[in-house]
């Protein structure tokens, strides 16, 4: 395997982005920020890969328009996934492992506020037997939450503790959309919304874009890189069946399998992509994270959940902790599909 490091990360999040569905206006300054972090120019990037979906804001081929932000003349090598950009990063990492490219810039973008996000998300369900009922994303998560609550897998206080920690930690994150120093009692005092979920149990609808630069170590561009590196030590993803009645919703066997393959031993910090509070509990159990592991110091997806970048942001936030010395060995997770259907785990470490 080639040694590959995360060398740049930039993000933008907001409740409602007053701009085009292609988010080019966000991507241009994000790319500029990454060139500043790395000291590189466009010509140092061998491969570009993005994650987005036209369903979010209704613009056909928005990922093609977003290529404007690159400045693709002379032509660039580019690819796209209709998934969180964490999976675009996986594609880029594999491409570097093949030896075809040495560096990659991976970006994601989405304007969820343009539509009704929880309704749009019902289009990812089974098109024959579930989507015709427009089973929305919040409802599906609520069914999962109650299954665990009444089955004894977790309780209301544990969910509230996730919310309270996330929102309190988010006060230190300038990119967070929902932040407030709060307590378990405050959270439990909130009214039910989609019973058994309170509004704070559900990630806020968020717009945004983000990007990460990765590089192989054995390349001239990396020799010129002046900053800190977060070295990728494991990168795996696994998927479960789409049908909700084919799996136990209170556990995540795909996360456990991806974690085991990536290697979670010695991790001191984890950024988990859990758009609903109870999902963080599922992920923590699946990965076997102990009490000594710091979870979501950024506030996590519960405090800003831009579709198609919230997973990539977990990787970026974990890398920032490694760069700053806040973590020696960090884990980042991303999810895709209904009720944690598909899960990705990356581990990374600092090296002196």
């Amino acid at each position: 395997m080639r040694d590959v490091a995360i060398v740049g990360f930039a993000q933008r999040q907001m409740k409602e982005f007053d701009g085009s569905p292609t988010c080019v206006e966000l991507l241009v300054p994000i790319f500029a920020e990454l060139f500043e972090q790395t000291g590189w120019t466009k010509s140092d990037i061998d491969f570009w890969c993005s994650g987005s979906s036209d369903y979010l804001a209704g613009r056909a081929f928005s990922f093609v328009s977003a290529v404007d932000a690159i400045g693709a003349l002379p032509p660039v090598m580019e690819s796209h996934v209709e998934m969180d950009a964490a999976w675009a990063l996986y594609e880029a990492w594999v491409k570097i492992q093949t030896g075809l490219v040495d560096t990659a810039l991976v970006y994601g973008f989405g304007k969820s506020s343009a539509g009704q996000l929880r309704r749009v998300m019902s289009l990812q369900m089974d098109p024959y037997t579930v989507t015709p009922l427009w089973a929305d994303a919040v409802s599906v998560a609520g069914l999962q939450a109650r299954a665990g609550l009444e089955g004894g897998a977790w309780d209301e206080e544990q969910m509230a503790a996730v919310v309270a920690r996330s929102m309190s930690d988010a006060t230190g994150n300038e990119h967070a959309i929902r932040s407030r120093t709060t307590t378990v009692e405050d959270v439990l005092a909130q009214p039910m919304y989609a019973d058994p979920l309170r509004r704070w149990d559900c990630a806020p609808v968020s717009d945004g874009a983000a990007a990460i630069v990765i590089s192989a170590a054995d390349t001239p561009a990396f020799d010129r890189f002046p900053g800190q590196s977060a070295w990728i030590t494991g990168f795996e993803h696994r998927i479960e069946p789409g049908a909700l009645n084919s799996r136990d919703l209170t556990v995540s066997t795909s996360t456990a399998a991806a974690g085991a393959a990536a290697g979670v031993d010695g991790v001191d910090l984890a950024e988990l992509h859990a758009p609903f509070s109870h999902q963080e509990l599922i992920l923590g159990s699946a990965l076997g994270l102990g009490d000594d592991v710091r979870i979501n110091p950024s506030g996590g997806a519960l405090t800003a959940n831009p579709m198609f970048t919230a997973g990539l942001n977990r990787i970026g936030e974990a890398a920032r902790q490694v760069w700053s010395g806040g973590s020696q060995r960090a884990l980042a997770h991303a999810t895709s599909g209904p009720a944690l259907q598909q899960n990705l785990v990356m581990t990374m470490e600092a090296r002196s």
Partner: protein
Amino acid sequence: MTDVGTLHAPMKVEFDYTRSLGPTLSEFMTGLKRRQILGGKLADGTVAVPPPEFDPQTYDPITELVPVGSEGVVQSWVWVPEPVPGQPLDKPFAFAQIVLDGTDRPLLHAVAVEAPDQIATGQRVRAVWAEETVGAITDIRWFEPEGDGPATVPGPEGEAVNGIIAPVNLSYDYAASPEESKFFRGLADGKLIGQRCPVCEKVYVPPRGACPVDGVPTTDEVEVADRGTVTTFCIVNVPFTGQQIPIPYVSAYVLLDGADIAFLHLILGIDAADVRMGLRVKAVWKPRDEWGTTIANISHFEPTGEPDADFETYKVHL
């Protein structure tokens, strides 16, 4: 100029997906049409509704479907306080995972109750069928708490259901980019506004936010002429749904004087056969009281009568 935000407009996209069914779902939907719910028998002996098309353990096709009850038990539920369009009920209701009698794995469907305190895990519910069934999951309108009413009696065998029509409709608040917004606002004043890339100095009409060559914001505003040169064109001879102009007509790339990138518009006022590369054309604006923030303010382009432009003047703009 004060920042007035971007231009927004509501946008709806709709499509009725016609989905063919494989043997398993065909049998399941045929059952629904006669008000009979069928479960798939899996390799581990459990029965699942809806039946998966392939066994999740052995990956073999599910071939054995068995009649199951139209009544069952709530396994998990969630309150839907603000239903979205298309859901089974348009007032608050519950979605539930329902284990039907004779099955082991839950069906996701709606339960019609007035408030969350009227539903509980373990509660018995029964299907409420549509007056007219078509062979779709929505033939079950929703479930309701089980009462003393008569049990459902399945109808006679009918013709097999081989497909479903699944309408998808989505509503958006569609925003133009800040640069496009300036362009459209300019059109409302009868102006054509482009932007110049600060690096390569090319003028883009309409402006695009970032120069696709250099990847930098196009900040420098430029007003261009409403006349220009046809760089390339096509003659439309094929009728299609929604066509508004009688065929044959000409769609052309017009390179406006002062712009570096041509844009697409309609050429009229000349026989289609006489349109050519290099033809000089000018915008024909609609009456001013019909103008809005739209490119449709320009009805079409027509020949100016000037001599054709020399190929050298536009060859790099093709």
